[in-house]
């Protein structure tokens, strides 16, 4: 089995509104259906609450307000899923009721 991180992207205006709400029925349903494959997951606070830290190249940090990459599509949450191969991971990911869509990234195995 391999692990994949499913990154959930949403329109920024949507994530702003969803602050504080409970998990939507669509997500609850998905999480129940795929409970056997979901290792972990979370919904994130809006991108406006993000803080980015970049290495400044001389041993220090530059801390800025906002997400790492400015974009209309923002990271709204994630699931860590376990699947036998990419096709299985994509099947699961297609069922995530994400606003815009998801990105599926294999997790690097570190020994």
């Amino acid at each position, binding site marked *: 089995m391999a692990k994949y991180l499913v990154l959930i992207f949403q329109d920024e205006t949507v994530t702003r509104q969803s602050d504080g709400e409970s998990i939507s029925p669509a997500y609850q349903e998905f999480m129940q259906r795929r409970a056997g494959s979901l290792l972990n997951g979370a919904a994130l606070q809006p991108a406006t609450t993000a803080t980015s830290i970049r290495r400044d190249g001389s041993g220090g940090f530059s801390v800025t307000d906002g997400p790492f990459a400015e974009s209309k599509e923002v990271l709204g949450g994630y699931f860590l899923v376990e699947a036998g191969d990419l096709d299985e991971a994509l099947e699961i990911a297609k069922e995530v009721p994400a606003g815009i869509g998801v990105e599926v990234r*294999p997790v690097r195995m570190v020994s």
Partner: protein
Amino acid sequence: MPAAASSEVAAAVADAHRREWAFVLAATLRVAGDIDKAEEAVQDAYASALATWGPRGIPKNPGAWLTVTARRRALDMHRRAATEQRALPKLLEPEESLTDDQALAAEDIPDDRLRLIFTCCHPALAPDARVALTLRLLCGLSTADIARAFLVPEATIAARITRAKKKIAAARIPYRVPAASELHERIDGVLSVVYLVYTTGHTAPSGADLMRRDLAERGLELAGMLRVLLPKDSDVAGLLALVLLTDARRDARVDHNRELVLLEDQDRSAWDRAAIGEGVALLREALSGRPPSRFALMAAIAAVHDESGSWSGTDWQEILGLYDLLMERWPSPVVQLNRAIALGFAVGPAEGLAELDALGADPQLARYPYLAAARADFLARLGRPGEARVAFEEALILTDNDAERNYLRARLGELPGLTKG
């Protein structure tokens, strides 16, 4: 086996390379577990064929000999790697439980070529990587060959292939024929890759010659291979029909100076009747698929031309109707463009031109030379040489293929009312 002369050996190895590469590699991949190791083992097997088929004689079944040799080599490599280190993520777990005898028994080696095709054409890979991987792994083309075929620097193709292989391993793109529920969609992806290989060879996007026959032939071979592996699939039948019906005209498309000859002026007696016959039979089968695929509809259009005795006798109404169906099935600006051209011949150049002008605003066609060339042709037929000149010049700017450029220049030269400015 009797000893063989070195020229005979070289010819036999070259022939086996062309015919058996995909089978040998696909069978070896199961044992090797990753693509690089499998490729290395298969290359070693071909090298060893060159070295040993002379003194020992050419085996009766070269494909089986190569497969057994490559699988043995992969098993050795795998055992060594297993004791040395934990290797990179694998495409699949090698079949370690196989005993040597089982792994090397030539008669029950399964045909894994279909798995290999679906891996190479997986939608999670970039489209240009799918094409490069397919040519490399299924046709056995070297990186240099692929680079030459697409007129791209070798380093670009090498990077493309390396990146794709890394993704296959890291993301675990499976080595498997897709489940029935997604098979249809995945086959369409494979057919698109094969068709792209064929069309890139049929009309080269750039360069001195109109065609790159080596690439067109690889496209034909791949379409034929798919037909063998998926004999009941009507979409596959449609693609092979399209490629055969298009390729049947190859010898008439250029003259003895390697210049482009348009369909209108082609010597129809030079068309390949055997290919047309085969294509038409496949087309009948392809059209029985409900609804017919876009490849089947395009093949049907090609068949109308192929079966018409002359340009003037072409049934343009039939072609127009087929383009209407194609627009329903596969709406795209390029199909619309071709439909407009058919309309111009079915109804009249003024009607065709009006449709083409309406397409002028489409951003997808902004740099598409055939739009300007088609406008130019209708303008010339309508006796509007000044506007035709502008359109031919625009087409010339957008065209990189020398044979097509020469044709456009010739048409420019034929326009009446040319005055030195």
